[in-house]
């Protein structure tokens, strides 16, 4: 295992310390239990928090700040945080207007956030939750744990965070979150595995000409292993299922998000973006807003995911609203 770390057991805390030092103007990191808040909490608004296993940086702590999250809860690598830090973050994010939990749909995340929400309610904090499940690679049926929350989470956190920032109440913010989730679809592919620090070796092995299609963000294998194909063919393997699922149709205005899994450089992400935007245009779908980069990652995995969000005036306005976080910043 080749990583710039000291010890698999302390990697999350060691990294948080560097993150805290690097962004002391924006965030404050609390330890034991570990959670991250804005350095200057904003009161009188709905608190918006999220969390999950670490290894997806900048998600979620990199999105704490004005116009996005009030707090984030990083668990161990690929392991949902326990209820304690979620509860602490919930209480820190509450200033009387209630708190929205943005939870990616994984059994562990759902169970731990649920428990924390019960505990917070018992302490008098009004909590609602949105479960993000945008991954079209997984069939949402009786035969699965439901669709995973992947790239759409980033878009949802931005839009919903900005709605809370402008003063929307908990019900409105929750409904908006549901609406974003209902209008976003994602899918990913891996060119290489990642190595979980405490596992010490790659989660799966791929031959030189193989890729995994339909991966999540935890280094888990995908639905299908296929041969590497040129980008012009690879992009539609992700984009077509996305477009067909909602479905997106000619005349739609969308936000297109091409996300790197951590080990794929920008030169390739922009290349994929260019193809995706063109293929949407060919279907009569207009890309009005876009995001390209490493925003929800799987450690050092090589690969990318595509997310498409159907926009309307309100979603576009909230996307454009100022945001000032370690990982996303504009309008400020």
């Amino acid at each position, binding site marked *: 295992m080749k990583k710039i770390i000291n010890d*698999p057991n302390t990697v999350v805390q060691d990294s948080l310390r560097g993150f805290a030092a690097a962004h002391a103007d924006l965030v404050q990191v609390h330890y034991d239990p570990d959670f991250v808040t804005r350095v200057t909490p904003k009161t009188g608004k709905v608190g918006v928090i999220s969390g999950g*296993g670490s290894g997806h940086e900048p998600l979620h702590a990199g999105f704490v700040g004005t116009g996005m999250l009030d707090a984030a809860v990083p*668990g*161990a*690598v*690929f*392991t*949902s*945080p*326990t*209820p*304690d830090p979620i509860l602490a973050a919930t209480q820190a994010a509450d200033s009387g207007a209630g708190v929205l939990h943005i939870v990616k749909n*994984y*059994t*562990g995340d759902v*169970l*731990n956030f649920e*428990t924390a929400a019960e505990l917070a309610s018992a302490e008098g904090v009004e909590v609602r939750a949105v479960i993000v499940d945008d991954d079209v*690679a*997984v*069939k949402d049926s*009786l*035969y*699965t*744990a439901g669709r*995973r929350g992947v790239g759409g989470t980033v878009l949802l956190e931005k839009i919903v965070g900005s709605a809370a920032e402008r003063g929307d109440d908990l019900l409105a913010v929750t409904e908006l979150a549901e609406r974003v989730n209902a209008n976003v679809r994602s899918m990913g592919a891996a060119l290489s595995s990642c190595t*979980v620090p*405490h*596992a010490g070796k790659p*989660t*799966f092995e791929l031959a030189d000409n193989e890729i995994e299609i339909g991966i*999540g963000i*935890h*280094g*888990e*294998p995908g*639905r299908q292993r296929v041969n590497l194909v040129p980008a012009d063919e690879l992009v539609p393997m992700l984009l077509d299922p996305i477009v067909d699922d909602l479905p997106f149709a000619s005349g739609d205005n969308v936000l297109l998000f091409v996300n790197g899994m951590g080990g794929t450089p920008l030169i390739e992400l922009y290349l994929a973006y260019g193809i995706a935007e063109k293929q949407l245009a060919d279907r009569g779908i207009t890309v009005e807003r876009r995001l390209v980069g490493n925003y929800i990652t799987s450690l050092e995995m090589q690969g990318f995911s595509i997310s498409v969000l159907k926009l309307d005036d309100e979603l576009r306005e909230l996307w454009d609203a100022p945001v000032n976080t370690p990982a996303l910043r504009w309008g400020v």
Partner: protein
Amino acid sequence: MIDAAWMRDALTRYAKRITEQREYLIELDSAIGDADHGANMDRGMQAVVVALADKPGNTPAEVLKTAATTLISKVGGAAGPLYGTALLRASIAVGDQQTLDGAATVTALVAARDGIVARGKAEIGDKTMVDAWEPAVLAAQDAAATNSPVKEILSLAAQAAEQGAEGTIPLIARKGRASYLGERSAGHQDPGATSSAMFLRALADTAAENSGAAT
């Protein structure tokens, strides 16, 4: 008989087992999950050992409760709430009894399994820890019905759990992270069922070693 000391022994034994099997559980979780189950359980059970040293407890229920809350606050992931709920429900089910006889042992096992099912909503055959717990409970109930000693009850439960865990190999997962793989999940043993069988084996081994007292 199972008393507080016995329960601490069993949990310590399980913690040791988990540390030994950490890599194996990580490997199982690599194949159909996210490669953390061994690390999760190890982190949790090490914390349980520390917590019990700090707060030994006077009844089996107290020991179980300390273990449960420690797991809930230290493990995370899917396994943390599931194991935590299992032990919490078992603790509640046996109340303040100083020692547990065969019937009480079965009560505890039933409550643990029900806790897992209540939280995780998995059914038998979904390729989860339920596939270890369910046959274990049935075997324990059968054994208790013929008034078998605790040692026997736990031994049969462990054996059934191990068979159940092995039986997950051909299954296609329908709950948890492995379900994302669809048909590709078949051919691999479920990590949570495996660690659950180890848990029941730790109980059985504790009973076997203390068999003079525990019959």
